[in-house]
Every structure is written in C-alpha cells, then in structure tokens.
C-alpha cells in the first residue's frame, strides 16, 4: 500500500516536471521570434525615447543629451511648431477617409453582390485601382488636377463652371487627396465586404423571407449586423493605416499649401530628413505613438461592445 502511494507520488511529480519541461521548451521555441520582435519593434521604440532627450542630428555621428529641451520645444512653441495643425489635418483626413471608404465599399458590395459574369467584370473594374501603386496614381492625378491643363478642369469649363485650383488652394487640397485615396481604396473594401456577405448563412435570409421581410429590412436587420466584425476589422485597420498616410500627400501637395495638408507623418519626415532634427521628430513620434495607441484601444473596445460575432 505504502509502495503504491510512493509510486503515485513519484508519477505525479514526474508529470509536473514533465509539464514544466514542456513549458520551458515552448518558451524557448518562442525566444528567436521574441528576439526579433524586440529587436525590430521595441528596440527602435526605446531608442526613439532615448533620442527625444538628445540633440541628435541625422548628419552628425555624435550627439549629446539636452534634457527636456525637445519636449519644451513641443509644448512651448505650439503656436508655431505646426504639430497641432498636423494632428488636426491627420484626424480630419482619417475620419473622412475611413467613413467614405467603408460606406462606399459597403454600398458597392450591396450593388455588386451578384455572382454573374457581368457583375464579376464590374467588380474587377472597381477593384483595379488597388493594383496601382499609390505613387503612380498620385503622379497621374497631378496631371488630372492641373489647374490649366487638367482633364477635370477641362470638363468643368465645358460645363460652364470655373476652374478649380485642386492642389494649390487651401480649400480644395485635402479634398483632392481624399478623392485619390478613396478611388484607390474603395474597391478593396468592397471586396472584403463581398466575401463577408458570401459567408453569411442563407438560412437567415430564407427565414426572413418566410416572415415577409423586404430587401431593405433584410439588409438592415440581417446583413448589416452580421457584417459587424468585418466593419470592426476594417475600421481599426483602416484607421491605423490612414493615420500614417504619407506618400500621396508628399507627391500631390508636399503638405501644402500653407500646411493645409501636412499630416503627422509628413511633418515627421520634414523634421527628420529635411531639418535632420531627430530629437524633435522623436518627441512628435512618441506623442503620435501614444495617441494612436489610445485611439486604437478605444476603437477596439467600442467595436467589441457593438459587434455581433454570432454569424
């Protein structure tokens, strides 16, 4: 009896040490990946925080610590350092861009949600701009937007309207950028929504039809709620992506006129690669990082509460 008890206890202890060993093995397996994550993601972040306390200049090999000088610059020259303006422009751009591409993508998905050849061709046409590089698209649009020789103003003048200074007016420059990014992105949103729609069980629709629901009611009460997770995914990913918009702004307007299109990443580029002031750009980057983190967390929490994952 005693022997049996001893052997049971030994077996248990072997099981525990086996479990421990497995856990250690599992952990060790993640170490290489963890190493690269830390090296490529976290080390730069720590280094950025480090640089925010220095006078690091991109053209100099050496730098020295300047305490809170860069942070002081950020907060004491708010009227002239253009950081607030860059945040304002970025938020306006992001909100309008995310809303328009998601609503546009959804509407197009409803429109093209027929699996016939003709609709397939139309879907391809709508999706096609996604294949074009943003830089290429921006260069093409520069000519389309040209005030004197652009095709858009040509049509406007043919219709009896005045020419619009698309890229050189503070009033229209941001709208012009939003048009390009909408044209480029909306097809992809449509495709995501279409595939999500294909994944919704047909039973829901059949049940609703038996209950006498019309198409509008079905879309509002069944399709839209069940597209919730897709919408949540699109909102979060597109939100983060839009906040980091850069190349289209740089090519079309260079952040102008009068900083009316200067987004945060463009300001960061300007501070780093035109003014070579890594200290200041680090400070702005840190603020931007925490801003993105907070807004993304809030968006995810909101989407968790509002989204129906039953489908």
């Amino acid at each position, binding site marked *: 009896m005693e022997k049996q008890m001893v052997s049971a206890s030994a077996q248990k202890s072997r099981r525990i040490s086996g479990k421990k060993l497995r856990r250690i093995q599992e952990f060790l397996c993640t170490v290489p990946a963890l190493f690269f994550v830390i090296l490529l993601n976290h080390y730069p972040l720590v280094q950025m925080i480090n640089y925010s306390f220095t006078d690091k200049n991109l053209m*100099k090999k050496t730098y020295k610590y300047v305490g809170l000088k860069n942070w002081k610059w950020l907060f004491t020259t708010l009227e002239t350092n253009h950081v607030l303006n860059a945040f304002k422009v970025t938020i306006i751009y992001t909100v309008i861009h995310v809303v328009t591409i998601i609503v546009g993508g959804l509407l197009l998905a409803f429109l093209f949600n027929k699996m016939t050849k003709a609709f397939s061709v139309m879907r391809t046409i709508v999706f096609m701009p996604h294949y074009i590089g943003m830089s290429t698209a921006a260069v093409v649009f520069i000519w389309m937007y040209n005030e004197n020789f652009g095709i858009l103003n040509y049509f406007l003048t043919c219709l009896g309207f005045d020419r619009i200074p698309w890229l050189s007016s503070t009033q229209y420059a941001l709208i012009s950028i939003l048009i390009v990014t909408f044209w480029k992105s909306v097809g992809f949103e449509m495709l995501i929504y279409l595939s999500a729609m294909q994944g919704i069980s047909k039973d829901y629709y059949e049940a609703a039809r038996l209950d006498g629901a019309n198409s509008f009611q079905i879309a509002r009460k069944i399709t839209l709620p069940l597209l919730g997770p897709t919408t949540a995914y699109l909102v979060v990913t597109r939100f983060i992506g839009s906040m980091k918009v850069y190349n289209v702004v740089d090519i079309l307007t260079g952040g102008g006129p009068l900083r009316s299109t200067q987004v945060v990443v463009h300001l960061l580029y300007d501070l780093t690669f035109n003014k070579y002031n890594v200290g200041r750009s680090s400070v702005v980057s840190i603020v931007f990082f925490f801003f993105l983190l907070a807004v993304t967390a809030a968006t995810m929490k909101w989407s968790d509460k509002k989204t129906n994952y039953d489908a």
Partner: protein
Amino acid sequence: MKKLLALILALVMVLSMAACAGNPDESKGNDGESTGVDIGNIFNTEGNSIDKSLYQVTEEVEVLFWHSFSDSTRSEWLQKKADEFMAKNPLIKIDVQYIGNYKTIATQIAGCIAADGQGLPAMSIMNAARILAFASTGVTEPLNNYVIANDDVDAFGDFYDGMIDANVYEEDGQVYALPFSISTFLFFCNKTALGDDLMPETWEEFKSWALRIHDKTGKVACGFSTEQNNMYHLIMSVTGIDPLNDGVTSALDDERIVKVVKELKELIDAGAVAMVDGEDDLRLNFQAGEYLSYYSTTNNTTTAYECTKDLGFEMATAVGFHGEGVEKPAYTASGANLVIYEDNDQQVKNAAYLFAMYLCNVENNADWATQSLALPSHKSAAEKGLLNELFTKYPAIKDTFPALGEGMVSKHKSPALNDALKVITQYSYQYFKGGFSEEEFDSQWALCKKEVDALLADVQ
C-alpha cells in the same frame, strides 16, 4: 486605479532609463565665433604654413562620386571626364554613380552617417541650398587648405564671386564646395510676338509694359510660378531688400515689400501677369502662345529652346527688371556644387579634391555648359571664347549668361532660408489666387511674417 498607477510608474521608469542610456561622444560642433566673409581674404595664409605633402596622393585610391544627372548626355560626359582624369592620374580610380536628385543624395548621405560612415562617397554633387547646412554639421570637408596646398587660389578666383560667397560658411570662413554649374532665374521671351518691345529694365516700366502688351494682344505678358525663389528674387530686385533681413527678424512688414506684393496682385487681376503652380504650366502656356514671356531658371534653357523650336517663333532671353534706387536685378547663386565628405581617408579626400577641381576647371566648365546649357561658373569662360560654340547655337543667351554671372549674389545664409521662402511664396500665392481677400491681407501677411520670424528664431 492600481493599474493606472502601475502604468504611469512603468512609463516613468522607461523614460528615465532611456534618458540615462547610451554613452555618446561629445558633439564636435564648431564653437568658433562668426568671422564674417571677405572674399579677398578667404585664402589668406599669413601666419599659417600648410604642409603640402598632406594634400598629395601617394598611393592607389578609389574615389566614389555620386551625382544627380539622370540624362545620358550629362552622365556620359561625367564618365568621359572621369576616364580622362584617370588616364592622367594612374593612382586614382574614379567610380561615377548616379544616385538620384539632390534630396535623394542628401537622404542617402544621412543613411551613410547613421551607418557609421559605411558606403559614404568621397564626393558628390550637391545644390547650393544644402552646402552650408552640411557644413554646419561637419559632414563635409572644408577646402581652404586643399586650395592653397594645390596652388589653386588663382583658379578659384575665376569663379563668380557670388558662387564662392555662397559656399563660404560664416562660422569658420571656410569654403565647403566647388561651384560646378550655376542655375539662376531669367526671362524667356517670345521675340516674334513682342518684337523689340522685350522685357523692360525697371519695375515701373515693367508694370506699364505688361498692361500695354496685354491690352494689345489679349495675352499674358509675363508668367511667374510658385517656385520658392521667384518671390525672393522679385522682392529683392524691386526693393533691394532681402526679406529675411538680418536673419533674426524678417523685413516682410516693410512697406516697400508690401507695395510690390500688392502691385503684382493688381497686374495678375488685370490679366497682364500670371502666377501658376508649377514650372510645367509656365512652359506649356508659353508654347501655346498664351504667355509672351515667363520667368524660370537657367536649368530650363534647353527645354525652353527644344519646346519652341518647331512652333514658329523666335525666343529671346532677358535678365529682367529692378526697382527705383536699386542698381540691378537680383539673381542669387544656386546650382550644382561639388562637396567632399569628411569621413574619408585623407588620401581619398586629396584625390577627390583633384578630380573635383578637374571637373570645375574653366575648359571643362565651358564644355559642360555647352553640352548641358547650364550657366558656367567661371568668369573667364566667355572672355576666353570657350563658349563660342554655345553662343552660336543659342544666340539668345549670348548677352544674358555673362550678365547673370557677373551680377550674382549669395542667398541669405540663414539655415531657415528655404522654409522661409516657401512660407512667403505660399502666402503670396494664396493672395494672388484670391485665397484671402484684400481686407484680410494685413492680417494674413502679419501671419506670414510671424511664421517666417518663428523659423528664423528657431535656428538662432
């Protein structure tokens, strides 16, 4: 609450650790006082003896040369000159590489510095606007000793004064680049349409000329673009005032500057003058015969000629106008310069200097001007008849090119120059295009001044 406190504490720790981390060397920034620049005394060696042997090439070296000329004519010319130079200097191997425009080269240089000098070229082409910014960081080599050690002081004196002055860093009085070619502004005119009634010499004459031409032809007499140096040149030519003033507080509130801006707006509103967003628009309107003259850089001379040769009108060029009490129009020194990078072996830097000076000698400089239609940087190029081929091919520039070189002055040396000029141009452009009304002008112009002053203050 506990979580929040923990988060704050963790954040404070990360920030403190980051602030304490690392052990960088002390910055080696120059702490010398401003010496001012006197062209005659730049290479004054009185009291200093230079060991010439330090600036000689005694072993085999390779010079990596980055340039910004994408077209085959120019890049092939550079390769040809490199081959010639290597034949004459067997110890030196030149590796000519096209990298991209000035901005790309500057970004690549920054990358090399970040990589602890790896891949850094021995020399590169660089635009005038970046020369002093580079000099202030110590990334480029001061060249005075090289010039003296190689007995090149006289040859150096043949560069236009404005180009030399533009490359002198005031903090240490040293020259940091060799002027390779010049680009500055000039007027391109449709001689067939304007006849002898070409560009007038004074601002007052220009105003009445533009209105008269517009009334007579219904066309735009002169087109300007939003290129940032445009407004700078216009203001300086008409008022004789540098808008950046002493580099501490701008002179944008000076009533003479305000008057010029308002008078230009009147001409634009009358349709006699146009202000467009981009050089391409200027050229296309000129080609279409809508603009009878336009203001652009000498870099575009070839394009201007090529674009108009089959259109059935003759082109002329003009230096431009100046204001009352101002001696001559202002044209500032811009263009391609050759810089040598400090973080190279001394022998490599010596070789790079020799090659840079070879590319910039008067014969090669004139040849380059003839091939590329760039304004040569040597005073004697025209006098020695080295530009005859160029002037025969393009007679319209025969008088204009040397006049531009002679009158050239250095731009304001504030590191905030480019950003400040962008601000001035953009506010002016918004005003010209009706972005704000006449009533709003005072407040908007005050904002412009405030922004420019802030930029100037930021670099103090």
